[in-house]
């Protein structure tokens, strides 16, 4: 079969900017974040923004898996939940120092994802989506049923330790502080991903995504690079989970639920999953769309649904995809 006519050509990806530019953008964005609490006075807006950024991190995690491995996951919430639970349980029981709890909460999901990635990378398409959904639901069931761990289906509220890394941790539940922390995490994550995509292992992962068999025949091991991508994606999801658990002082099994993974996927695709920043932008827009639609009480699903259908029909490449196309079209004109 000719690959040329079978399917529409894969979306053109923009050339990734070089290291210096990535770092420049990141520095600028960080500065902007620090200024945010002074620019925005409403606590409500700051709090909503914080939560939107957490969603953006999770969506970035899902989107990165699509971008770099070509795999759709319906189970990324598993790592979100794992991060949140590991941190919440360790802190609530005071089993280890809070700094170590943070470290473990990020390391554990990353490691689990790496191991799973070694196996899951072989499976593609819808089967992969269902497989990840299954794994995510397994974690959900455990959190839901295991009452001794964190009160099962009721979820568990917990108090933060008085200090973490020497800072008063109660400030982490103040939106004006948390918004800066979350924003910085997001910016660093995006910059890190951009650097990864440019790296050797990132490019090999892209080759494996495109054609695993041929990647082997040009001499590359095809198990490790995709697994690294899984691990990175899980790290971001766990980071989001830890941030959420910290900010809320609360963990619940819903953090693992597949519908959260599904929402994150929607956010990523709405924004444009073939771009690194697409999912984050999609997440923020989707978050505020849903928030806005919430005013219409039980009719919010119809509003969100209609917007989703309309947006998808109008910009199937996602928001960033459309912007990129418009920009490219303007540049190509003399």
């Amino acid at each position: 079969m000719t690959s040329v006519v079978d399917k529409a050509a894969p979306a053109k990806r923009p050339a990734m900017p070089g290291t210096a530019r990535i770092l420049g953008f990141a520095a600028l964005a960080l500065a902007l974040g620090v200024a945010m609490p002074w620019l925005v006075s409403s606590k409500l807006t700051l709090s909503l923004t914080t939560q939107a950024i957490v969603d953006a991190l999770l969506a970035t995690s899902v989107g990165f898996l699509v971008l770099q491995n070509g795999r759709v996951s319906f189970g990324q919430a598993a790592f979100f939940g794992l991060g949140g639970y590991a941190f919440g349980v360790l802190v609530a029981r005071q089993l280890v120092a809070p700094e170590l709890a943070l470290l473990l909460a990020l390391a554990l999901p990353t490691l689990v994802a790496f191991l799973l990635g070694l196996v899951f990378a072989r499976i593609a398409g819808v089967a992969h989506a269902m497989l990840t959904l299954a794994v995510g639901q397994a974690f959900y069931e455990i959190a839901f049923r295991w009452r001794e761990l964190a009160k099962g289906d009721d979820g568990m509220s917990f108090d933060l330790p008085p200090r973490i890394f020497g800072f008063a941790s109660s400030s982490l539940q103040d939106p004006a502080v948390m918004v800066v922390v979350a924003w910085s995490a997001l910016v660093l994550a995006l910059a890190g991903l951009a650097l990864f995509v440019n790296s050797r292992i990132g490019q090999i992962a892209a080759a494996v995504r495109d054609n695993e068999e041929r990647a082997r025949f040009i001499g590359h091991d095809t198990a490790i690079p995709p697994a690294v991508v899984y691990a990175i994606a899980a790290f971001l999801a766990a980071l989001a989970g830890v941030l959420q658990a910290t900010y809320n002082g609360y963990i619940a099994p819903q953090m693992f639920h597949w519908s959260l993974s599904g929402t994150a996927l929607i956010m990523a695709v709405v924004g444009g999953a073939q771009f690194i920043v697409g999912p984050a932008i999609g997440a923020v827009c989707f978050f505020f769309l849903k928030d806005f639609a919430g005013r219409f009480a039980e009719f919010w699903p119809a509003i969100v649904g209609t917007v989703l259908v309309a947006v998808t029909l109008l910009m199937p490449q996602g928001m960033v995809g459309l912007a990129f196309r418009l920009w490219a079209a303007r540049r190509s004109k003399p």
Partner: protein
Amino acid sequence: MAIQLLNGVVYGGLLYLLAVGLVLIFGLREVVNFAHGALFMLGSYVGYTLAASGQWWLGLLVSVVFMAAVGCVLDALVFRSLRKHDHIVTVLITFGLLLILETVVTVTWGKAYLSYPVPKLLAGTVEIAGSPFPIYRLFIIAVSLLVAAGLAAWLRFTRMGLYVRAASTNAHVTSIQGIDVDRLSLVVVGLGTALAGLSGVVAGPLLTLSPTMGNYILIDSFIVVVIGGLGSFGGAFIAALLIGQIHNLGAIYLPWAATMLPFLLMIGILIWRPTGFAGSRT
């Protein structure tokens, strides 16, 4: 034990009716239809009004016809324009549809739970292995077997069936042979949606009607589709029966793991054969 196995077949049969619609739609349009559960729900509600007023069979007919029309509209207006895009893009659309349908049903029929009557013809029980068994459940088994046999015959022995199978593998090449794949998929998506309507009414007397009812059975149907091997009708049939049994026997013998068993089974099968029982696609 005989009864337990029979119960497994009942639930498996219901899952098959839903899963086969998913398979049809996925095959031709490569659409992972998250709205399928909502279509099942809509079909159930459409038949409800008539069924509740004693016209059960008419309700069934109306629902099937109505849902077939809904499927055709969906295909022509939405799926057709998205055929050039990636699977995940269409997932968004179907998810949006799901949200819209739920609201439409809420507005039309309200949020209160509704329950279906059993048609008079099929009320009551028969003795099986010394204990009463609802006749209606036997009817469900019969319907799913009939649908399975009918579909298999259609796909295997008719020209159109051949075209459907061809287009499900490679729509481009099929259309180059002079086959209007858009028209074909109108039929196929219509059929798949009509089956969602059929299963909605058939499942009605067992399940509570609520705008979210489709969500609780959709995942099981997806598991069936994936285990069976994407795009495989025979595979879906076997997988549905298997999942039906697992549900029943799991609830009895391994209650603490019952909800996990279908997932575990799927993980095992996919690791063993990444394309499922009978599939060659992913």
